[in-house]
C-alpha cells in the first residue's frame, strides 16, 4: 500500500518512491475517457495500478462521487489533477480544492496553454509549482519534454517530473526519445512519462529510456478492449523496466555473428 514507511530495502528492491510514498505499481492510470464505471473498473484492475488520476469539477447530482467510491473500493490512491486550468492562479485554487475534498497533498499539476495542443504553459506551470510546493503539496507536474524546464521544476521542489511523449490523447508515442533520456539523465526525482502513449511498445520504450513510471489513460480507456489493453500496458511497463535494468547491447553498424565461425579452429 501507498503510505507505508520507505526502507532501505525498498530502494535496493526497485520500489518506486515519490515524495516519500511507496508506489507499488509503475503504471499510473488516468480515468478519463472510459465509457462507464464498469469498464473503468475492469481496466484498472487489469492494469495493476496503485495510483490513479481524477479531475475536479462542479458536482453533478446525477454522477455524485462515483469515481471516488470506485477508487476507494479498489484500494487505489487518488491523484487529483488540475486539468482544464490555464493559469497558475486557477491551478493553485483547483489543487487546494482537491486537497480539501480528497484529503491528499498529492497533485498532478497541469496548466495548459490552449485547447488545440493541450501543451503545458511553462511559465504558468513553474509559477504554480513554486506556489504549491510552498503550500506543502507533493507536486507532480505534467511538463513539456524540455530538459531545462524539467530541471527548473525539480529545483522548485517538485516530487517528480512528468514529461509528455506527445500531446495528450494523440497516441503519437514518444516523439523525442533523446529529450526524455536527457531528462532522465539529469533528474534526481522520479521521471514519469505522461501523455501520448498509444500502444504497449511505447510504454515499454518509456521504461527502456529510463523513466521510473508511465502515466496513461486514453490508450486504455478508448482502446477497442480497455481491459486487454490495460493488461498489455502492465506487461509493457514491467518488460521495459526489466530490460532497462538488464542493460541492452550496444547498437552496431555491421552484423556480428552469434554462431561460431565454421572456418575457425
Amino acid at each position, binding site marked *: 500500500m501507498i503510505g507505508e514507511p520507505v526502507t532501505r530495502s525498498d530502494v535496493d528492491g526497485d520500489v518506486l518512491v515519490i515524495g516519500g510514498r511507496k508506489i507499488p505499481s509503475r503504471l499510473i492510470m488516468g480515468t478519463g475517457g472510459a465509457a462507464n464505471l464498469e469498464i473503468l473498473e475492469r481496466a484498472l484492475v487489469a492494469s495493476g495500478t496503485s495510483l490513479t488520476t481524477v479531475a475536479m469539477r462542479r458536482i453533478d*447530482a446525477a454522477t455524485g462521487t462515483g469515481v471516488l467510491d470506485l477508487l476507494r473500493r479498489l484500494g487505489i490512491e487518488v491523484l487529483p489533477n488540475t486539468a482544464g486550468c490555464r493559469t497558475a492562479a486557477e491551478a493553485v485554487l483547483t489543487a487546494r480544492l482537491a486537497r480539501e*475534498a480528497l484529503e491528499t497533498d498529492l497533485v498532478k499539476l497541469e496548466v495548459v496553454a490552449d485547447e488545440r495542443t493541450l501543451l503545458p504553459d511553462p511559465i504558468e506551470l513553474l509559477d504554480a509549482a513554486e506556489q504549491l510546493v510552498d503550500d506543502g503539496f507533493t507536486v507532480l507536474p505534467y511538463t513539456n519534454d524540455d530538459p531545462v524546464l524539467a530541471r527548473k521544476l525539480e529545483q522548485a521542489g517538485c516530487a517528480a517530473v512528468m514529461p509528455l511523449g506527445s500531446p495528450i490523447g494523440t497516441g503519437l508515442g514518444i516523439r523525442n526519445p533523446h529529450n526524455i533520456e536527457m531528462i532522465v539523465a539529469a533528474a534526481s526525482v522520479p521521471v514519469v512519462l505522461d501523455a501520448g502513449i498509444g500502444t504497449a511498445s511505447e510504454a515499454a520504450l518509456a521504461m527502456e529510456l529510463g523513466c521510473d513510471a508511465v502515466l496513461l489513460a486514453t490508450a486504455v480507456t478508448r482502446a477497442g478492449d480497455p481491459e486487454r489493453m490495460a493488461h498489455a500496458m502492465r506487461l509493457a511497463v514491467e518488460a521495459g523496466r526489466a530490460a532497462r535494468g538488464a542493460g541492452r547491447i550496444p547498437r552496431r553498424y555491421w552484423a556480428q555473428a552469434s554462431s561460431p565461425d565454421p572456418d575457425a579452429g
Partner: protein
Amino acid sequence: MHVWINGDQRELGAGASVLDALAELGAPSSGVAVAVDGEVVPRAGWADTRLADGARIEVLTAVQGG
C-alpha cells in the same frame, strides 16, 4: 437573499451558511470541497461561514479525468 451555486442562482435565507448552500444543492458531505468568491472554505468552517448576498459558491468533487 440570492447566491450563485455552481453557476445557478439560488434563494437562501438571510445569514445562510456554506452548510446551508450544500444542503440546497443536495451535495454529499464527503468527497467535496467548497470555494466562496474564489477562496477555499475548509470543511471545519462550513457551519460558521455566513454567505453574503450575491456570493459565488463553487462545490467541486472528483470526476473521471486525466
